[in-house]
């Protein structure tokens, strides 16, 4: 005899609730966690270097680097004077909430206002796994093409902000900035889109201002007012 148990729950329901738990702890500790995602080489580390330079007098920043193998990015970030740890993903293509929590412990967030996770370079897997971050940010770089939103819709729907990086090379690429922004806004009308260049520094001040504003708002609103956008409730 076989008995059927109806479950009807997201496979990742456990990770979802671990992520929610981590977020509320961060809220209590008044610390902000940013999850930064992109394809490999879009400019996560370069953007972070410029961002830290702009914000380091206002915020105490720590960075978690989640490269699959090397520690190069962690060494680069360390030159800014920001606290940094290298996370070992054990070959995994994403970080889940449990690994992010361990990362925060390794970083030791005591005294930090802002922890930034440079997620594994990948537009697919990190989109499925809620890390517990307060906000998700994504970088799309000009050479990747303006049709990325059509190919990876989930990633664009879970992010609060999109940086379009490497705009200094726009003249050399067949990349339609307005069309791209239009596509992104169709997927996610609430997303903030900021064109930047980590090379020339264009747009970085606007991005840094956005981030600082988010960190302050998170710190200064009480837990009861907290609204966290969840896009992946189980829908039947």
């Amino acid at each position, binding site marked *: 005899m076989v*008995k059927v*148990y109806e*479950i009807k729950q997201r496979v990742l329901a456990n990770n979802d609730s671990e992520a929610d738990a981590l977020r509320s702890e961060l809220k209590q500790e008044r610390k902000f966690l940013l999850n930064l995602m992109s394809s490999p080489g879009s400019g996560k580390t370069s953007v972070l270097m410029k961002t830290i330079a702009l914000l380091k007098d206002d915020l105490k920043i720590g960075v978690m680097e989640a490269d699959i193998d090397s520690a190069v990015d962690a060494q680069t970030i360390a030159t800014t004077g920001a606290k940094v740890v290298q996370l070992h993903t054990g070959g995994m*293509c994403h970080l889940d909430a449990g690994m992010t929590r361990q990362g925060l412990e390794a970083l030791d967030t005591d005294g930090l206002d802002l922890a930034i996770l440079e997620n594994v370079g990948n537009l697919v897997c990190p989109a499925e796994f809620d890390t517990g971050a307060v906000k998700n940010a994504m970088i799309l770089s000009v050479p990747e093409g303006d049709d990325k939103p059509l190919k990876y819709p*989930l990633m664009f729907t879970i992010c609060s902000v999109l940086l379009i990086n490497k705009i200094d090379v726009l003249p050399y690429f067949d990349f339609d900035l307005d069309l791209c922004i239009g596509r992104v806004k169709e997927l996610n009308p609430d997303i903030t889109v900021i064109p930047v260049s980590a090379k020339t520094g264009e747009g970085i001040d606007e991005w840094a201002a956005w981030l600082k504003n988010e960190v302050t708002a998170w710190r200064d609103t009480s837990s009861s007012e907290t609204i966290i956008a969840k896009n992946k409730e189980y829908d039947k």
Partner: protein
Amino acid sequence: MHELGIVFEIQKRLLAFAAGNGLSPASIASVVVEVGEASTVIPKYLLECWPAAMDGTDMEDATLEVEVIVAQVQCKKCGTVYPYLEHDKICPSCGAWECRMVTGQEFNIKEILVYEEDVPEDGSLGGDPAVR
């Protein structure tokens, strides 16, 4: 390729389910998951990872069944609901690409099938309760 990690996640859920219901993991016959076409999970890889992850565990005879849910979208211009991939992401009525996802991002455990021993009428779980 994150299907192996996902299979481990399913495995954890099954163990928790068994413990929560006072069942032995070995009594799990099968698990049915629903995978939306527009989720990031590829059924073929999921099925390939399954035996590798279950081998040598109490649940190694449990099978995985995948039900694919077609990605349906609604056109934002004319309201037509159409299967997204079949129509190459373009509305068959008006040619627009702007659309809202209706179904297709699901990734759910739908049901778990369990072999049942004959449960005695007194409501106890049957068999030796120490066997787990």
